[in-house]
Each structure stands twice: as C-alpha cells, then as structure tokens.
C-alpha cells in the first residue's frame, strides 16, 4: 500500500510531464476545426471525442497539460525564489526591515489568495505570462513566511557564527549557509504549491482570465464544455479528470514527502 501510494502518483505525474514536453513533437491538431465532428462522442480515431467546434479533445487535453505544467512550475519557481530571498533577508537583517517584511506578509495573507490573483489577472489582462505573474504575486508570501521562520532559528547556529567570524557577508551567509538548510520544508511547500498553482490556473482560465482561445487550458475546456454538458459530458469530464488526477497525485506525493522528511508545516 505504502509503495503504491507513492508509485501511482509518481507515474501519473511523469505521464503529465511527458505529455506536456512531448506535445509539440506529436502531430497534434488541437485547433483543427472539423464541423462534421461537432460534439462527437469518443470514437476509435478520436479517443476522447470532439468539442463544440469539432476539435479533438485529446489533442487539446495534451496541449492543456503543457499550459498547466508551465504555469505550475513557473509560479512555484518564481514564488519560491522571491519568497526565500525576502523571508531570508528579513530574518537575517532583523530590526525594522524584518518588521516591515512581517507586516507586508501579514497584509498579503489577509487577502484570500485566489481573490487577489483573480483581481490581478483581471487588471493585467489575459495571457499565460500574466497568469504566472498574478499567481506568483500572491504565492511568494507562504515561502517568505516559511524561510523567515527557518532562518530565525538557524542564524545562531555555530556554522553561521563561524562564517560570520571569518568575514562572510550577509548575502553569502544567506545563500551559502542558511538557504540550503531550509530546502527540505521548502521542497514540501513547493510540492503543494504546484497543486495550488495548477488549480488556480485552471480556475482563472475557467473564469476567462487565463490563457486565451484558441490556446487550450483544462480550465477553459471545462468552461466551454459546461454549455454542452447534457449532450456531450465528455467535454467536461476529460479535462476535469485530468486536473483531478494531477492535483491528487501532487497532494499524495506532498504528503509522502512531508512524512519522509518529517516536517510539520502550517497548512493554511
């Protein structure tokens, strides 16, 4: 059971990544409109059926995998780097800089994350870059809080004191001696962060604030499919199941990693 709980999600995530990376190499026709195939149910030559414009759902699903992976990794990378630097620098500097950082973090935490992202994405305008910027503007806070707390407990350790005595600068101490020690909880947080970003991207696209047509996203596929749910449920089922499987797998792996690394995170 224990092995399966890690292996199954790992396999699913590998499939997701492989689909996303291989999508441009396959002869996909996600934007090919075939009016004779409008709302066609799954068949041999189109395993997941066709959508309201007669486009193959499977091809769009694979392109959607690319969108979600790009946003998931992009958001987590950007937020983790930004958050670690802010949180780490604040804890190391102390004094009013730390106070300012803590207050800023508090203010950002006072916004329901997705709400601020929705507003930002709406103001920035559609597009995958803006989705990543909007979600990272919200996402960095969790990492900042986490790294700040870690650095506060680590900065009195002997090796840090020794490095300081040897004349190492603040930047070097942060990057070489402190941040590497915060990696374990950071990795766990980042894993859950991927799940959050993937759902958030799909949510923004569902609201029409994410990637724009004809570019495919699982969220916009669900939104477009809702109108035809009664006659062609596969339009909503396919992207939803894909989304659920990816998020479920990431969460399962996150749980396993947390247990393995024995980390207690404040799960908000």
């Amino acid at each position: 059971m224990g092995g399966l709980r890690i292996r199954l999600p790992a396999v699913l995530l590998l499939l997701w990544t492989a689909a996303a990376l291989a999508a441009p190499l396959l002869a996909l026709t996600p934007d090919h409109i075939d009016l004779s195939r409008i709302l066609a149910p799954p068949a041999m030559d189109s395993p997941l059926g066709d959508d309201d414009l007669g486009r193959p759902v499977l091809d769009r699903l694979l392109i959607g995998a690319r969108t979600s992976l790009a946003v998931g990794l992009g958001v987590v990378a950007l937020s983790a780097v930004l958050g670690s630097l802010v949180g780490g620098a604040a804890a190391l500097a102390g004094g009013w800089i730390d106070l300012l950082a803590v207050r800023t973090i508090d203010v950002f935490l006072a916004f329901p994350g997705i709400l601020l992202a929705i507003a930002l994405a709406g103001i920035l305008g559609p597009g995958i870059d803006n989705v990543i910027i909007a979600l990272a503007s919200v996402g960095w806070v969790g990492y900042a809080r986490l790294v700040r707390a870690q650095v506060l407990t680590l900065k009195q350790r002997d090796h840090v004191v020794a490095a300081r005595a040897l004349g190492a600068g603040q930047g070097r101490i942060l990057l070489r001696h402190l941040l590497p020690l915060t990696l374990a909880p950071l990795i766990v947080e980042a894993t859950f962060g991927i799940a959050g970003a993937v759902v958030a991207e799909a949510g923004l696209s569902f609201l029409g604030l994410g990637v724009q047509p004809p570019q495919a996203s699982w969220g916009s596929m669900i939104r477009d499919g809702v109108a035809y749910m009664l006659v062609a449920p596969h339009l909503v089922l396919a992207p939803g199941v894909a989304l659920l499987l990816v998020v479920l797998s990431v969460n399962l792996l996150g749980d396993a990693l947390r247990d393995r690394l024995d980390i207690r995170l404040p799960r908000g």
Partner: protein
Amino acid sequence: MTQPILSRIGSALVVVFGVCTLVFLLIHLVPGDPVETMLGENAHPADRQALREALGLDEPLPEQYLRYLGGLVRLDLGRSFQSQRPVADILAERIPPTLELTGAALALALVLAVPLGVLAARSRGGLLDSGAMGFSLIGISIPNFWLGPLLILVFSLWLGWTPVSGRDGPISLILPAVTLGTGLAAVLARMVRSSLLEVLEEDYVRTARAKGVSEATLMWRHALRNAWLPVLTLVGLQLGALLGGAVITETVFAWPGVGSLLVEAIQNRDYPIVQAGVLLVSLAYVLVSTLTDLVYVWVDPRIRLG
C-alpha cells in the same frame, strides 16, 4: 487577559490599513496607463482625459490616496462605471447571498468533517480510516469549478431535483453549498482526526479509560472537547479559502453574491467595483480571523491565564 487581546486588535488594524493601501495601489502598480486598460487602446483622447479627471488620476498619487482613504471612512466607494450607481449600494445588495452561501458551506463542512474525523481516529489505520482519509484527499483535490458542473449535471439535469442556477429558495442553496463546502470539509476532517489522535494520547484520557468510561463518552465528552481548538483555528484560517472559493462557486451557479459581482466587474473593467469588492472580502477575512484568535484566547484557559 486584556494585553493579548489589545495587541491582537492593534495588529489587525495595521493589517486593515495595509489592505486598504494595497487595494489602492493595485490599479496603480499595473504597468501602463489604467485609463488605457479601461478604455482600450483605440479610445478617443477626449474620453481618456474625461475618465482621468473623473477618477482623479490627474492628481498627484499622495493626493489620490488621501482622497481614497477619506472616501473609505465615509463609506463612499465611488460609482460603478457600468451602471453609475454608488458602489456601496451595489455591494450591500450582494452581501446577504454571499453570507448565506458561505454560512451554509461552513455549516455543511462541520457537519461532515466532525463525524468523518471521529470515525477515522477511532479506527486508526483501519479500513474506515483509509476510506475517510481517501475521501478527504479527493475532497481537497477536486476543484470547485469542476465539482459544481458535475453536481449540476447529476442533480439538476439528470435527476431534476435542484435548479441549475440562481438563488430561488433553500433548494437552490444546496448544490452551491456542497460545492463550496466540500474542500473545507475535507481539510477539517483531516484536522479533526489528527487533533483527536493527539488528544487521545493524553494522560487524562488514559485515566478516564482506566476508570471505565465508555469509548463513546470518552470520544465525545473528553477528547473532542479538547481537540476542537486546533480545528477552530483552522476554520478561521480556511475562511479566506472559503471566501475565495465563493467567487468561483457563485460564478458557476450564477449566485448573485459579491463573488459573481466581482467576476462580472472584472470582465466589464468596472474598476471601482473590483476595488471595493476585493477590499470588502479581505476586510471580512481580517475581521473573522481576528475574532477567531480572540475566541481562542477566551476559550483556552492556558492562553487566557498564562
């Protein structure tokens, strides 16, 4: 006892001020000209100038900021671009449906989570435990903009039990509340379980058990009473997610609350409403999490007296 309460209220006020400032900056931080964003690139220069003056965007930033804060104090949130009605009036109409929805979702989450968590904790490592936690993992992972349409498909379109959308009597509340409450129920069930497992290790539980207290009494009278504090904290923390989720859930079900208003306003580029809506929801969140902390201080003698 007053010291922790006052300091909590103090920091909440600082956060409120910060939230107001950030919402103000939201529109100014955006690269480019907000007027161009609102009117599009092809707008007539005279229209642009008119809008700039109407919004006070031709004044220096500090002046705009002060005017904005002054407006907030007087509950003057400006007028909607779209309907020209005062934003405060529009928001006031949309608040009751959102309270109704989030209240129902929260109640549903608690009703589901407590028995589920208790069941899981009682059969730790057993089949029921795996089942309950598997269910909870799916609940955490399922996006509400997918769960909502699925519920509509099954219960509205196939079975015809509930209306597809809109707010028309208690029956129309069921599907939106389930959609919004499922994620919270899942998170809470996990917390109830882990919190119970921790409490069940305590000495007083062993003492009670040794005295011959029945397992049911032990669970409901002794363990749950002490296990619900972390659960309460989590409810406070999760309210933000609940309010954020309401934005999407309301859109799925065309529920006439603050969330769907916000999405409409974003699509119409009606920025005064966007600003006020984000502000309202965030302030509600700050208020609730502060209250949660205060309740925590009040009910836990270790904090109150310590």
